């Protein structure tokens, strides 16, 4: 790339003003944690300390749930059209502040600005717009003539799409008349706190949205609190299991959106160039920190060589580095802990006999948490890297000979969140999609999202659906 090396094109940090410390957002105002505990949040790309946030304990969880309970009465009594006004206002504020929020998200999470700017922010706003539209039409949603809200929702979200997951959770809850206590992930709390400010800016009544920062113990307190009527969780299968145990036998309703090990199936008549793009987008989007990432490539044996050559050539052009550079394709791994897990599983892949390949052109920054985009060939179903969720930029390549074998291998996983099919033959798309046990099946594309499209899993990928009309159900007594 010597002839045409792209000069650095960093997005300005000046558009976002990060305070040195943040409190908890309870009952419409920021306040310190009852026990005055705090913890720092860092930029994973530089390990620079960005701010410190309050660590919510049991007393704070209780205060937040009480505030949400108090707000629930008047909020749920509002006509749907009135609630919609607030949601529309929030959606517009997200759009107006999208540049600021995109930079913030890239700083705190490590994801490339290109993705936070072009995916996270437009999608987050779209979710609020979409559910604003439902708020006054709930009786036409197919859940009876007068569906009622559930009450107070306790929501725990992950670090991979902090603001977008917040939107997925908060928008349908508010549209249906519930109030919310939300806990963002420990490593990415900032955009939720900026969202709290947006709620104030939108004039949202006190207590309707409460944000508690903290770690897993805060989440556990929230989930176990008796004042919660509904728990919504997105994150790891392991934590999901613990939550299910806590909630079992109570009156609480539960939806879980957990891990995945999606198969991306490429048949020999696929549009090769676009399939390569889809594979890259499927596994390297957001550094592979995507629960529906296409982490298992199932390629028909007859085109294996051609496809892998094309894929490697394409991977050589991926630009890894500063998340705020507008030309960066792959940013930083979110935390040291996650990086260690990716390294451990990649080492296991090598030990089990799979062939590890990384682009020669890839130079990683010396500071921060980084992992080069990685391809494993000759992976077998029995390898750990074909079974366990890596949650990083690591693709395992397996092969198949017939459509039946492709379906059998694709379904042979404890997970079932998403899958992809690449073929020019429409009838094959329909017949294979029908046999795949996955919540979302993409055909000739991957990682496409829309607020109107329900999302959720089978098996260890969880239960319940978010997005679309189906996403309303979890927040309504139907």
């Amino acid at each position, binding site marked *: 790339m010597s002839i045409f090396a792209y000069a650095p094109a960093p997005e300005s940090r000046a558009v976002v003003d990060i305070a040195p410390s943040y409190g908890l957002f309870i009952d419409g105002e920021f306040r310190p944690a009852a026990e005055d505990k705090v913890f720092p949040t860092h930029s994973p790309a530089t390990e620079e300390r960005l701010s410190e946030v309050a660590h919510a304990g049991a007393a704070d969880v209780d205060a937040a749930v009480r505030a949400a309970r108090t707000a629930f009465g008047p909020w749920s009594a509002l006509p749907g059209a009135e609630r919609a006004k607030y949601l529309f206002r929030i959606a517009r504020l997200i759009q107006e502040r999208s540049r600021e929020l995109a930079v913030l998200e890239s700083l705190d999470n490590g994801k490339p600005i*290109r993705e936070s700017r072009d995916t996270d922010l437009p999608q987050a706003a779209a979710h609020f717009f979409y559910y604003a539209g439902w708020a006054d039409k709930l009786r036409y949603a197919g859940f009876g003539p007068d569906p009622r809200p559930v009450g107070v929702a306790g929501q725990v979200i992950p670090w991979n799409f902090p603001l977008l997951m917040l939107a997925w959770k908060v928008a349908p809850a508010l549209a249906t008349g519930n109030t919310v206590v939300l806990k963002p992930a420990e490593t990415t709390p900032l955009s939720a706190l900026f969202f709290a400010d947006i709620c104030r800016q939108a004039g949202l009544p006190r207590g309707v949205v409460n944000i508690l920062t903290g770690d897993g113990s805060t989440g556990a307190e929230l989930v176990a609190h008796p004042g919660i009527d509904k728990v919504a969780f997105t994150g790891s299968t392991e934590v999901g299991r613990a939550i299910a145990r806590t909630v079992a036998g109570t009156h609480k309703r539960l939806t879980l959106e957990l891990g995945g090990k999606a198969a991306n199936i490429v048949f020999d*008549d696929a549009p090769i160039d*676009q399939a390569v793009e889809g594979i890259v987008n499927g596994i390297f989007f957001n550094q592979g920190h995507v629960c529906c990432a296409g982490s298992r490539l199932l390629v028909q044996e007859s085109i294996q060589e051609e496809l892998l050559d094309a894929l490697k050539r394409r991977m050589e052009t991926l630009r890894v580095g500063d998340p705020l550079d*507008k030309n960066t394709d792959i940013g930083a791994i979110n935390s040291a802990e996650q990086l260690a897990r990716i390294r451990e599983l990649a080492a296991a892949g090598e030990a089990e006999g799979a062939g590890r390949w990384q682009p020669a052109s890839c130079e990683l920054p010396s500071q921060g948490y980084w992992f080069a985009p990685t391809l494993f060939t000759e992976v077998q179903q029995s390898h750990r890297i074909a079974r366990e969720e890596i949650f990083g930029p690591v693709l395992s390549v397996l092969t198949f000979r017939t459509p039946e074998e492709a379906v059998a291998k694709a379904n042979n996983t404890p997970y079932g969140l998403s899958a992809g099919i690449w073929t020019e033959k429409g009838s094959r798309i329909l017949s294979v999609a029908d046999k795949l046990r996955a919540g979302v099946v993409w055909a000739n*594309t991957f990682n496409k999202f829309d607020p109107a499209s329900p999302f959720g899993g089978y098996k260890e990928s969880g239960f319940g659906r978010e997005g679309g009309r189906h996403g309303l159900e979890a927040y309504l007594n139907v």
Partner: protein
Amino acid sequence: MPPTAPAALADVTASDAALRRHLHGLPGVDTVGLEARAATLGTRSIKTTAKAEAIDLAISMIDLTTLEGADTPGKVRSLCAKGARPEPSDPSAPQVAAICVYPDMVNIAKEALAGTPLKVASVATAFPAGRAALPVKLADTRDAVAAGADEVDMVIDRGAFLSGRYLKVFEEITAVREAAGPAHLKVILENGELSTYDNIRRASWLAMLAGADFIKTSTGKVSVNATLPNTLLMLEAVRDFRAATGRQIGVKPAGGIRTTKDAIKYLVLVNETAGPDWLSPDWFRLGASSLLNDLLMQRQKLATGRYSGPDYVTVD
């Protein structure tokens, strides 16, 4: 002159049926995916030093073009002067690659460019419709070459292509290839009339098999000319063709490329699709008439920090 069909693919042009099998056996193109990829590459942010390099590279790749019924020798001479010295006040500005004119203007251009390294390109073969008998097209080509054209831009018979007579198109290109003699042959696919991306990929391969030195998006005379997706597709085709045969073919998007921003997007496509090997006027050209002035204004802006305005570049 290069061999018409590379040895590795010699038998695919043996008959209409074999050619059809080959062209229809190429991987399909998914419209949504192709357009999404082109749009993503279009968001690359090319700044400061990279932008300065890109502007000069783009200038050096221009086929500065006038293809009007109203062209006069005076108009052509003035365009030649502009191409040879785009920036009167700054000799460090590169020259364009070629001046592209109708065949009857080739001798004028040739004379005006004597002593410069600029090439003269001529559109021949009953440009732009291509609706003439083969002997007429060949005569048109020989005329242009006899007048001194270094490069011939031919149009394919879209009617024959769309009705599936691939071998006819193939034979016509090989005939023109022969008539063009030493001149470089650029084959214009007229993507806007081929209408589907699958057709554009097939036409690209057909032209390359028939001995094209360059494949070119369009005549600039129809409503859809060069676009990022169709150029991306053609770059994929030349990349794959080199991998299959060892022969490198150039690409020329033409028509509708007017701004520096657009030109840079094309360079990004080249860089990230075919690869840096194509980033030279030998392998990539921009067919344009008004693009040069915008590039020059942006060049001045980078040099001085201020926008100058249209009176600080020449009107030709």
